[in-house]
């Protein structure tokens, strides 16, 4: 069971992200979408319990990652996010998938392949594909080959998720 440490520096995360971006180019992925979990932990250091409220990070081939998270968790989340200041919150009556679709649009990802991490839950993927209906030229594929090639550690970390309020 891997131990969580706080020793990993922001620079290390930047190096890991750059490596993923290289792999994305190699595998032809215009974007990669992750929910919280081991891959997010490895690439960004952000550890967040999964709940029905979508908390996601989107990588594109260049630039910093973009974040999508619940509005009322913003303060707690900002304490954890070390890389990327494109943070898009969704309020309780809003759609997180619209936020993800908005990131793709703003970053010029209008066609081509979007990689979904294998553990992304169907309702998140389904929400994204429906929110992106205006860009029907997007193709959703598994991000796993690119993640593996970039050496992303996909081992589930110890500890438990949370569901509270």
């Amino acid at each position, binding site marked *: 069971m891997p131990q969580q440490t706080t020793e990993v520096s922001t620079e290390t995360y930047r190096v890991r992200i750059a490596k993923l971006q290289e792999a994305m180019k190699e595998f032809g992925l215009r974007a990669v979408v992750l929910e919280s979990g081991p891959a997010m932990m490895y690439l960004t250091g952000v550890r967040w319990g999964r*709940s*029905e409220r979508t908390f996601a990070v989107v990588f594109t081939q260049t630039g910093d990652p973009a974040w999508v998270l*619940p*509005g*009322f*968790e913003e*303060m*707690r989340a900002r304490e954890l996010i070390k890389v990327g200041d494109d943070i898009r919150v969704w*309020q*309780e*009556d809003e759609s997180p998938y619209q936020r993800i679709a908005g990131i793709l649009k703003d970053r010029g990802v209008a066609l081509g392949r979007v990689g*979904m*991490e*294998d*553990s*992304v*839950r*169907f*309702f998140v*993927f*389904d929400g994204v594909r429906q929110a992106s209906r205006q860009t029907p030229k997007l193709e959703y*594929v*598994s991000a*796993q080959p690119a993640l593996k090639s970039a050496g992303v550690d996909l081992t589930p970390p110890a500890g*438990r*998720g*949370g*569901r*509270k*309020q």
Partner: protein
Amino acid sequence: MNRRMFLASAIAGVAAAQQSDLPEPIRKLKPMLDGVQPITAAERAARVEKARRLMREHRMSAIYLESGTSMYYFTGKREPGQAWILPLKGEPVWTPADPAKAAQALRDSSVATGTLGLEEQVRFAAFDGLRKEAPALEAVSATPVTAGCRMIKSPAEIALLQRANDITIEAYKAALATLREGMSQRDLSANISAAFRALGTGGGAMAIFGKYTAFPHGSIQPQQLREGDMVLIDDGCSVEGYQSDITRTTVFGKPTKRQREIWDLERRAQDAALAAAKPGAACEGVDAAARKVITDAGFGPGYKTPGLPHRTGHGIGLDGHEWTNFVKGNKTKIEPGMCFSDEPTIVIYGEFGVRLEDCLYITENGPRMFTKQSPAIDQPFG
């Protein structure tokens, strides 16, 4: 909390609860599971029939579920690594959660074309594999079927939820009797877990002290209990898989005028939500009713803090959070058998937060709380 982890340690916990190092109020607890009636096979069969009716309505040829609460709901089993397929016609099928094998099972059930409903927690990898192995099937969300069944609770389900709520109140009473100067939030959390174990079930709750009560999900900052601190505990346990979710907020010591005023306001907001949760009303109206009490007092508006930064409540059943929510925009009509939390938090960053959370179920005659609401800031239990 991940309840299953607690369940795993529950048996060991009964022995541990007898150890003398536990605080007196917890040592005195006795298991509360006598007479619990599990869901019967006949009730599960009726659920499957209802699922088929909804599948027909939503034009699904089959639904595909992997291990999780919906699988448990229909089958009474939790089978990691297995998938359960319910075709519109014919018998349900168990198969390894492997796309090639699942696609074969679908073909064997004469489901080769049409629409396949995927349970919403299924991983993208399963979707990706199934579209390759069964390319003529169109994958859609099975939620109209799974939630369509699960949102409406039977009397047997309400009885299990009632028990989980009753146990949680007893655990909280015992744990709040252990408050002492200097204890950490983790000490209190551990006492709550120990109380649940002594009561015979798996459960736990987060504990938050002082200004950190403003963070709806707490803070990792170390906290030591001081005279005058707000104390917030939130979560619950499960009985036969059915979850409780209760929050109590109180003060360690004598409350200030400000603490009392905000607490009273919170209680009025919780009451307003309860009064609005009438059968036939739209879910969003319940949120609006609670939020109005808080914004009329000068907080907010909307989700702005200081104020109520989140929805007023969520559905509850086999998942602690499930369909449907008391949230703006949700026009779903409230129906008898639905179960919800009622928990409009008031967040004042830098000062404190107050959340009172009780769960309710809807009857023909209106909403009924599972638990007695907290009557006053210095009386967590009614």
